[in-house]
């Protein structure tokens, strides 16, 4: 077991799983899915290539949807309660209370009032959109190449799902830097 595993608390481990592990998987799935979706055009690939890209696209979009759900569920129901925990009366050290720590200082309050308020909501749009994309790809399969208008709409929703997750991920990293859940 690498030494750093022993150095992480349970909260840090969950934050790592939520933000880094699932986040990295999401990025990988998005990259593969986007490349496959963009190039899924008859003029760009052979029939054999279409079959291969469609398989990769199905895998990429399905993984992205599943990972998006896992990310928001772990974030909302496991990590977020630690972030917003109430401060017991008489507590002066706010290290274990990230939200309270951020809003107590005018210089850092915006990390919560803007950053977390945006992140905690926009993040949930990613699984809704990613699931719709995965369904469309699974439903049409190779036929998607003949439905250009739907392929373009799928591409837009796919990118929007990534943007939603990207905003959430970026603010998650920055807020964790300012006041880690530990």
């Amino acid at each position, binding site marked *: 077991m690498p030494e750093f595993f022993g150095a992480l608390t349970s909260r840090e481990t969950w934050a790592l799983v939520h933000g880094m592990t699932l986040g990295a998987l999401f990025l990988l799935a998005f990259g593969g899915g986007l490349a496959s979706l963009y190039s899924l055009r008859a003029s760009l690939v052979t029939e054999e290539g279409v079959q291969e890209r469609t398989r990769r696209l199905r895998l990429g979009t399905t993984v992205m949807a599943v990972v998006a759900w896992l990310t*928001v569920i772990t974030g909302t129901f496991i990590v977020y*309660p630690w972030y917003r925990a109430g401060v017991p009366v008489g507590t002066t050290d706010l290290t274990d209370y990230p939200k309270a720590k951020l809003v107590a200082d005018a210089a850092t309050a915006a990390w919560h009032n*803007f950053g977390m308020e945006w992140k905690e909501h926009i993040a949930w*749009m990613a699984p809704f959109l990613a*699931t719709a994309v995965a*369904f469309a790809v699974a439903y049409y399969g190779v036929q998607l190449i003949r439905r250009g208008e739907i392929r373009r*709409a799928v591409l837009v929703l796919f990118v929007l799902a990534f943007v939603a997750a990207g905003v959430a991920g970026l603010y998650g990293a920055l807020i964790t830097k300012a006041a880690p859940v530990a």
Partner: protein
Amino acid sequence: MQSTDTKPNGPVAAAFIAAAAACFTLGLLVVLNDANADISKALDFSKNYGLGSGVGPLSGKVAVSTIVYVVSWIGLHVAFRGKELPWRNVVIATSVLLGLGFLLTFPPAFELIADTIKGGA
């Protein structure tokens, strides 16, 4: 009209509109939660129904949005199954709902709207 010999677009239209409806619902609940203390208390599903521990009103916002997603998807899927819909209309409906969803979850926007509601109450 279906442009080529492929499956009808109804089921995909249902999935897209349901996802956009869920995003809009989430945005609407974000505004209502900020504008009204009673609604905020009602949305605390972690306290009211034990959905998570210490999650607060976010638990209700995401639970209701997810329910809207699933129910509307099933309903629209049944309604649109086997049908070829005008894709432009699907895109417009999805875009409007999604645009409002993104707008209403953006803090400066939802705070302004919530403050306006509170000011008018």
